[in-house]
């Protein structure tokens, strides 16, 4: 009665392949990536795998990263612009464990930056790769529910309907109120959903020297922006595209040119605006920039006050 072979306890092979995915899957994803880079903005279907992460938590981005990461890479992961949020921390640790990846919080040091919601404030450089986690890759989905129809619309560049959405915004609210996942025209050809980044970040994609890859795990789509690709946010001639602006600078570092989050500080209406890019904010504080509320925040041990 020894039908079950016993596990060889001396087997030192790791339980998982390098970077979690098996080599065939990586090859399949790389093929999709190559096609995506060849046709900027075009959504390439791929065989999305089950990942040890809930769908909608970045399974698309994590698969793209797993397919491109190597031992020489340095990974940065951000969620809502911050390096220290739960999802960012666990994805970073996932690659530390499965790919022996060096990780960093410094934008400039990273070779791969996996992100949800933001593009770092520090300018990207050639050789860097941005990996976006995309929940809904189809920009026309809310307007046209049929997949067969949206594919035709992309195939023949029938994008009047996208403009109708912007028209509706202006007609109802006097301006385009879409503030995130703002549709863009890529290379003058494909309309693309830039994943839920704020429209503040849209101009950063235009002619960026970095390679930008987009992975949607649940929807099984990959698309890409090769370096130096034109990315134009859709608008009307008499209602040009505008990014968000704030009435006050960052409360911690005093930056007035970064994307700010509004943080409620007490139950008496107290609030402050802070940079959403946590690394950008820390870098500025280390360089001696001080926002008006830095003292208060340091007193509450919310941030460490850096003595210049």
């Amino acid at each position: 009665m020894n039908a079950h072979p016993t596990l060889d306890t001396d087997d030192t092979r790791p339980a998982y392949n390098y970077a979690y995915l098996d080599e065939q899957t990586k090859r399949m994803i790389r093929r999709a990536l190559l096609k995506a880079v060849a046709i900027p903005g075009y959504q390439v279907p791929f065989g999305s795998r089950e990942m040890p992460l809930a769908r909608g938590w970045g399974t698309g981005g994590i698969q793209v990263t797993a397919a491109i990461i190597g031992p020489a890479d340095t990974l940065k992961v951000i969620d809502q612009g911050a390096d220290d949020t739960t999802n960012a921390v666990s994805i970073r640790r996932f690659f530390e464990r499965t790919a022996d990846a060096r990780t960093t919080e410094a934008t400039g040091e990273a070779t791969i930056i996996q992100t949800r919601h933001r593009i770092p404030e520090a300018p990207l450089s050639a050789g860097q790769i941005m990996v976006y986690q995309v929940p809904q890759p189809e920009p026309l989905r809310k307007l046209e529910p049929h997949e067969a129809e949206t594919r035709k619309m992309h195939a023949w560049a029938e994008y009047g309907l996208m403009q109708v959405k912007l028209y509706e915004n202006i007609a109802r609210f006097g301006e385009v109120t879409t503030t995130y996942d703002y549709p863009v025209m890529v290379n003058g050809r494909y309309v693309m959903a830039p994943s839920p980044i704020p429209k503040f970040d849209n101009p950063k994609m235009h002619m960026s020297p970095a390679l930008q890859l987009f992975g949607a795990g649940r929807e099984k789509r990959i698309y890409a922006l090769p370096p130096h690709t034109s990315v134009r946010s859709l608008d009307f001639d008499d209602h040009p595209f505008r990014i968000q602006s704030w009435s006050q600078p960052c409360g911690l570092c005093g930056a007035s040119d970064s994307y700010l989050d509004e943080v409620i500080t007490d139950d008496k209406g107290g609030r402050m605006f802070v940079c959403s890019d946590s690394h950008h904010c820390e870098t500025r504080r280390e360089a001696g920039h001080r926002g008006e509320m830095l003292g208060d925040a340091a007193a509450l041990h919310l941030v460490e006050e850096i003595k210049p």
Partner: protein
Amino acid sequence: MTVHVSPPDAALDPAPLLSIARVSRFYGERIGCADVSFELWPGEVLGIVGESGSGKSTLLRCLAGIDRPDAGEVLFRGSGQPLDIYSVAEQERRRLMRTAWGIVHQNPRDGLRMDVSAGGNVGERLMDRGDRHYGQIRERALDWLARVEIAGERMDDRPRQFSGGMQQRLQIARVLVSEPKLVFMDEPTGGLDVSVQARLLDLLRVLVRDLGLAAIIVTHDLAVARLLTDRLMVMKDGHVVEQGLTDQVLDDPHHAYTQLLTSAVLSV
């Protein structure tokens, strides 16, 4: 049983806008419409009448580029040479459907975007063809809403908030804004009460005359056909049984079925 008549302005434009040759469409064993041929000249209004299930709507769908006929050809002369709409690429056919002709559906829900405002519905075709100036799009939309008697203040309301008659007029504005040469209407007055029908018919008559539109109107209502159309085609069981000038067909029907149809109308 074909009566040859000169269309109203044949002298001005001798070439037909639409030439249909032996168009047939089958649903499995059953006939949708069979062996239909006719020509439509610019500015002409053609009515297709017949009872339910006689193949009127099937024919219309074939002509409008929605359903490919199983046999025959549909030639459309937009500008220059006649074009077989089913031999050109789907892309070109879709472009024609959005610009050169328009379809007014029986049920406004099929022709309108119910969660887009009236202005957006009318402006969509303009944005489709590449208009990117919000102010101008809005101005054109407002102008067209006025022409179909929808108050400007309702412009930002959604079609859901409109009555049936208003929805139908909005659908007409949405189609006509791109200045098509040809309009297909499938029972445009279906489901509307009589007084609303009368207003809509009045409006359609004025628009068709003013714009010099060619139109094909499918209806089972002979009064609608009498009021709007120049020429009439009577269909039964998928075949055209009689065609000719509207007054001629209605006042002096030759085919037994047409005689039955005209005598079946209630006169109050």
